[in-house]
């Protein structure tokens, strides 16, 4: 870390090598788009390189990295929503602009083959629940983080994470029920 703070290039390349999959996997779980996740991963490491001197070691490095990744991923989502709204307005005024809908179903590359279909439904349902519940659920299920670690990343209490997880599961159940009821008709 000291070498990195002194601007050592090889220390930076080691860091990227060590943490890239963690950053990418977290980002792809949130934005559900490989290209966006790749962009976010690049931005995260750029920010790490630029602001490593501000990392005082008060929390674990992984916690700091998760925080940057999550904030970038949520920013990216907001940007995309803004773009969609703008494209919608453009279409109202007869301008074709960018294409509105990206309805391709997301497939996470790390999900087991036999679970891919169910996972697609779960990813769809995840888009419908509040951000903090989605973050807690994704960190726990896709990144294998414990509730305690999630509490540290989200800067909250263990009790709050437990509550977030139970609300996330209840909301996801509701969304999935709706999805499968419509699909089984």
């Amino acid at each position, binding site marked *: 870390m000291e070498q990195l703070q002194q601007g050592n290039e090889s220390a930076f*390349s080691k860091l*990227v*090598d060590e943490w*890239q*999959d*963690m950053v*990418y*996997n977290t980002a*792809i779980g949130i934005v559900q788009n*490989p290209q966006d*996740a*790749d962009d976010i*991963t*690049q931005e995260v*490491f*750029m920010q790490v*390189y630029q602001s490593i001197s501000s990392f005082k070691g008060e929390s674990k490095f992984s916690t700091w990295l998760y925080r940057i990744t999550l904030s970038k991923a949520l920013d990216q989502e907001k940007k995309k929503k803004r773009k969609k709204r703008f494209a919608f307005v453009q279409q109202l005024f007869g301008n074709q602009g960018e294409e509105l809908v990206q309805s391709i179903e997301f497939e*996470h*590359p*790390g*999900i*087991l083959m036999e*679970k891919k279909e*169910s*996972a697609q*439904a*779960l990813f769809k*349902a995840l888009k419908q629940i509040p951000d903090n519940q989605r973050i807690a659920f994704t960190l726990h*299920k*896709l*990144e294998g983080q414990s509730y305690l670690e999630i509490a540290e990343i989200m800067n909250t209490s263990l009790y709050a994470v437990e509550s977030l997880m139970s609300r996330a*599961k209840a909301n*996801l*159940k509701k969304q*999935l*029920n709706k999805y*499968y*009821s419509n699909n*089984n008709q």
Partner: protein
Amino acid sequence: MTQKIKGMNKKENINQQVNEALDSFDGAQRASTSAYLLTRIRARMANEQNSVWEQAGRFIARPWVFALGLFLIIGTNVLLIINNNNAATTSVAEQISTPDELSNTVATLYDFENNEP
């Protein structure tokens, strides 16, 4: 009776699908980035350092900067319109007084001309 059983079966089926979906992330492996991430990061860093204009553009594109700019433009326009309205009221008053004077003058001239034998 048969319909009730069918309905229960459907509900059970949905419940099973929901539970399967909720457990579908179990055993998942981490997704990996495409190759040469470090090279792409370095290229992007070099690009960003070069383009001052991009940085300025990004600054202007920030929502609060954009909103402030818009507010200033609209505010200036509103002020100009209010000022113009005031000025317009004065000039209308002037316009009214001038024809009166003119008409007086014309009338006087007309009277004067009519007085001629």
